[in-house]
């Protein structure tokens, strides 16, 4: 009987996640972000048992069109969670300050390292790996080569690993 109850308790969280109204939860998240003037607009949503896909979204921050994002994918197996954005094209008003496009950026979280989110940017012009340390609230990205955007490079340090960008939040 104990074995069955334990099995039930292990399976229940997965089933809760599988049956979650993911679109509605996403809308709730959108409402919370909108309070901080961050809006994802014009997107098409599609649910999967383990996640959510968002296509053709346009990101606005404080009324400013920041970027067009072709595809966002969020999925979780509870012990391992992964979010990725693909084909991000920055708006021309920001393209002077930041790299104009990113092919793919991925963030992953695993229970094996619960206080760390691993980051990876796959782009021929802007390849980088990094982490977000939730304990020290630090973002650290290591770029293979210096990005073309002068604003970013001025905030980086050149080390043996590559060009390092660090930011506390």
């Amino acid at each position, binding site marked *: 009987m104990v074995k069955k109850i334990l099995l*039930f308790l292990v399976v229940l969280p997965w089933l809760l996640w599988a049956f*979650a109204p993911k679109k509605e939860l996403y809308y709730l998240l959108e409402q919370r972000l909108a309070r901080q003037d961050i809006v994802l607009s014009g997107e098409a949503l599609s649910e999967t048992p383990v996640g959510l896909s968002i296509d053709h979204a*346009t990101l606005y921050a404080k009324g400013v069109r920041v970027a067009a994002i072709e595809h966002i994918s969020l999925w979780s197996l509870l012990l391992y969670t992964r979010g990725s954005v693909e084909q991000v094209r920055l*708006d021309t008003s920001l393209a002077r*300050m930041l790299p104009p496009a990113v092919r793919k950026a991925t963030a992953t979280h695993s229970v094996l390292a619960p206080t760390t989110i691993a980051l990876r940017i796959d782009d021929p012009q802007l390849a980088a790996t990094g982490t977000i340390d939730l304990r020290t609230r630090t973002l650290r990205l290591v770029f293979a080569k210096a990005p073309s955007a002068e604003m970013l490079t001025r905030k980086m340090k050149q080390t043996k690993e590559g060009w390092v960008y660090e930011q506390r939040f």
Partner: protein
Amino acid sequence: MSSVFNPKRLWPLLWIGAAAALAKVIWVAVEWSLPLPTAGVEHTGSGVQHALHYRYRLASEAELKAPPKPTKRPTPKPKQGSLAGYKLVGIYSTPKQAIVTLMKGTKSTVISTGPKGGDVAGYRLKEANATAAVFVRGSEKVTLKLYDKQTSSSSKTAAPVASMESKPAPKAVSKEAVKQSAGIVERGDTKVISRTLIEEYTQNPDKIWKNIGLYEVKNGGKLDGFKVRFVRRGSPFEKLGLKRGDVIKAINGEPITDYATPMRMLRDADTIDDLSLTIERNHEEQELKYEVQ
């Protein structure tokens, strides 16, 4: 009789089915007690309609019916003087037009070729090349060579700034000269902003916040401009005429109701020729106009 199917094997499936049903019931209860939104948030921006860069005052009906009054335009008298003491600090020349920046002491003046190009001490700009500019006043012709700060600082016995020449030099665009003319200069009543200065600021926005402090002004929870917290002395923003306490209400006639308006200005920095800031100073609205070159 032996049983083909053992009902005990169904138990795990029943347990999983029960858990799935429970999960669904939990979510139904959550949705019922905390109504989740059924639609997302969409951006409702100002759209694509932008105000004109210029404002036009439309004539009233009475003005249209009244016979036009002849207006006498005073012919501007050129100021007489000499170019002694003037330094040629910047040249921008194309096959069609040349623009130069002259400095005397701390005051700088921008003049260009053509009838409306302005004059300095009665001299008009005739032509310019990469290293020199030719000025004329009547039959007199003066050539100023581009002022080289390095040469001047290293050698106090440098050649005089102004020299008399009559030979026209070939026209060319000098990138170095354009760089040197970066900044804000006054041409008569008009302030001219160098495009290179705008580009410099758009590529390094951090520089903006070292020279000017702004904070949001909200009206009924909506953005209604930016108030100037401070302006660094000697910075381009001081030269633009901005003062502490001013509220920037509009850019090029477009009210600042979101961040999109200033960002649009940054995006169009390459193409705009005019810039106007509507500011509120001491409860009065004023318009600061600039040219971008």
